[in-house]
């Protein structure tokens, strides 16, 4: 992890904050299995945070279409999460929370290190680019298949679920205060990990963060939330020299196109994860987080 941006020579504040958040999320869910302190229980699918029940909104949506039944406490738990991401940015989930995202970012880091070590300068290696619209089709598909079969579909193959259960539920006995300390030890340590490792290997070889950018239905869901989010990146053109260093670091470069072309002031596209890498990499401090109302451009 290079803590300084090579162009702007700024300390990568947002990268550090983001890594701290990603690791804290994992640590937060490990608190109970490792110490028995029951402040936070559950995993990324649904959790109890100091008595407040929160749930993955896409899982809850799937459960509603699959069971044709609304369980109000689960709906409220999902609503709390949606309100949170409406405030901090929809795909902030992807950048700051998702444990699979952290794993796939690690695979990108390996890819970059290998390319740097073994190829001539300026070689970028294979990079398959698909349409970012693909994930919306998958989101609709997942909901449609859930409705038809009555089975929550994304959960079957979700690397996020597999990663969270591998970390939270396999590491230690589910309940360390229990009389019998046998480990649950079946959730993630199985062929499920092949899904996770398979995606990571594919990404390292062919396409950086392909799952997150093109496939993930949960990412698509949060992308829709992100269009209405309050916290967004704003570009101030007075000092901007259009060096495009912000775009070179951005994991979803097209979100910066319109703001850079002076067509709009805010990054409004849902695929922006509010990761802040553009802010860290800007040599003139033209980019900042700002409050954006849903109708502002």
């Amino acid at each position, binding site marked *: 992890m290079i803590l300084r941006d090579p162009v702007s020579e700024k300390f990568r504040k947002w990268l550090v904050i983001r890594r701290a958040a990603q690791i804290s999320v994992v640590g937060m869910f490990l608190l*109970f299995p490792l110490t028995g302190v029951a402040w936070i*229980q*559950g*995993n990324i*699918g*649904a*959790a*109890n945070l100091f008595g407040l029940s929160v*749930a*993955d909104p896409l*899982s*809850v949506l799937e*459960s509603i279409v*699959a*069971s044709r039944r609304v*369980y109000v*406490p*689960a709906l409220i*738990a999902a609503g709390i999460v949606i309100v949170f991401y409406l405030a901090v940015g929809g795909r902030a989930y992807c950048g700051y929370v998702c444990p699979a995202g952290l794993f796939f970012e690690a695979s990108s880091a390996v890819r970059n290190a290998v390319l740097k070590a073994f190829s001539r300068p300026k070689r970028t290696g294979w990079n398959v680019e698909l349409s970012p*619209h693909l994930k919306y*089709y*998958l989101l609709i598909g997942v909901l*449609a*298949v859930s409705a038809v*079969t*009555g*089975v*929550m579909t994304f*959960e*079957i193959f979700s690397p996020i*679920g*597999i990663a969270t*259960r591998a970390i*939270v*539920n396999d590491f230690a006995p*589910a*309940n360390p*205060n229990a*009389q*019998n*300390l*046998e480990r*649950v*030890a*079946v*959730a*993630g340590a*199985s*062929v*499920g990990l*092949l899904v996770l490792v398979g995606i990571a290997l594919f990404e390292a070889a062919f396409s950086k963060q392909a799952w997150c950018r093109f496939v993930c239905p949960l990412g698509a869901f949060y992308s829709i939330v992100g269009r209405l989010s309050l916290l967004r990146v704003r570009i101030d053109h007075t000092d901007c*020299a*259009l060096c*495009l260093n912000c775009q070179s670091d951005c994991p979803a470069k*097209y979100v910066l*196109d319109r703001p*850079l*072309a*002076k*067509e709009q002031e805010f990054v409004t596209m849902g695929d922006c994860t509010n990761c802040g890498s553009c802010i860290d990499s800007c040599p003139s401090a033209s980019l900042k987080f700002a409050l954006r109302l849903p109708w502002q451009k």
Partner: protein
Amino acid sequence: MVRLKQTVERPDEDTYERRLERVQEHVAAMSRRRFLAIPGILGSVIGGAFAVFEIELLKGKKFHLRPPGALAEEKFLATCLRCGQCAQACPYNSVRLAAAEEGIAIGTPYIEARRIPCYLCEDLPCIKACPSGSLSKEITDRGNVKMGLAVIVDRQACIALQGLRCEVCYRACPLLGKAIALEFRPHEVTGKHAIFEPVVNFDACVGCGLCEHACILETPAIKVLSLADAKGLMGRHYRIGTKTG
């Protein structure tokens, strides 16, 4: 021969205006580009049909003994958020989470009675912990739990039925004397001993699996089966005049 004059201005000179022009051209080009909706929709429909087919094939392949209060299996698979809070609430670590090998049940909680059975806590902490209603909050009394039904699956292996005193399943039952009764009758071979046969009362049995866990055989003769596997159903036209109780 006319010598072509070299142009004075250099078009590739990197000024701010040029860069802005390039960015704006790029945006215009991108907005002209249309996402191919028809292949996308076709692909989704075909992929979706395959997914539906696969899921239907995987449905109901295996019986999972669910924690207390679980909804019927198809409702359970439609609502469980796979968060593992029931497993974390269990004071015996009885509740396990299904691995990916379990197909569509991946991540859902189940109990392997032979490893650690459900001890049928009075306060049912797993139900209290469930955020999705998959473990129904309507079950507040442990006597109303119905996870499955214990069945003597092999009468020839059960040592009690061979005339030996065992009663281990009878003693292990948390609803002692209600869910498993001992019915005794004379041993026909010896003429002077008795056979103490464990008999499960389906109305009282909750399917916790303590009997299956306790069975002294190498492979248990009493097992918890799903309600569908365990129960028969009498035709509605039968009228039993001698029925008691």
